[in-house]
């Protein structure tokens, strides 16, 4: 082969380029984005909990604040992200070892259906107390 000498450059934009792509790619994009979001949230979550060191007054003020609508909606979104990442992740453990990988597309939709069902119920549980 006497071919060109051009050396290509790493292009991570391909991770988020779903044009012409199919279900497996969408699952990957979702998994990557939700994973990074959850890691960012873990840092925030741990940092915010430092108010526990301040005793009851600080913490209970925080909790009252966090029981307000914007934060409850944030919790609902958090549960959605957790469910998508977690249930797609269960699929990946099995698919990643070759179990059912020729049905990976169907497993993805099954995981998302399960996520949607749990999400509907937990959304009700989170928002119901704020209703009254």
């Amino acid at each position: 082969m006497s071919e060109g000498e051009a050396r290509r450059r790493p292009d991570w934009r391909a991770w988020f380029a779903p044009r012409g792509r199919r279900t497996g790619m969408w699952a990957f994009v979702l998994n990557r984005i939700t994973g990074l979001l959850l890691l960012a949230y873990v840092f925030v979550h741990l940092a915010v909990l430092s108010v526990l060191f301040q005793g009851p007054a600080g913490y209970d003020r925080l909790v009252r604040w966090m029981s307000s609508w914007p934060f409850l909606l944030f919790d609902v979104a958090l549960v959605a992200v957790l469910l998508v990442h977690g249930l797609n992740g269960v699929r990946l453990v099995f698919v990643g070892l070759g179990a059912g990988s020729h049905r990976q597309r169907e497993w993805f939709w099954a995981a998302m259906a399960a996520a949607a069902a749990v999400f509907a119920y937990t959304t009700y549980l989170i928002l119901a107390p704020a209703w009254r």
Partner: protein
Amino acid sequence: MGERGYSVWAWLLQAFTGLLLVVLVALHMVANHFAKRGLLTYRDVAALFADPYWLVLQLALLFAVIYHGLNGLRAVILDAGLSPAGARRLDWALFALGAAMAAYGVGLALSIGGWLGSR
């Protein structure tokens, strides 16, 4: 990075902590959101963490989250292409970050549960 088989363990542990997290996060959410109507008060949290079983579950959650999250981040960064030296530096940086998070998290859990005396 050199040793053979190292990546097998990293992947297996990622899968294992992932499955574990599905259970532990579910418990965590149930206790914090769904066991009572609304969020827990300081007193509720202190009572939970004074229970050794709950403490152990939450520490397991902490360690699993740290490994799964940082190893996931490691995979994302490695996907972008790193030199072996860069990958080694990344491993040390993530290890230090994980250790700091673990120390902080354990301190927090023991403190709120009253396990450090003086409360």
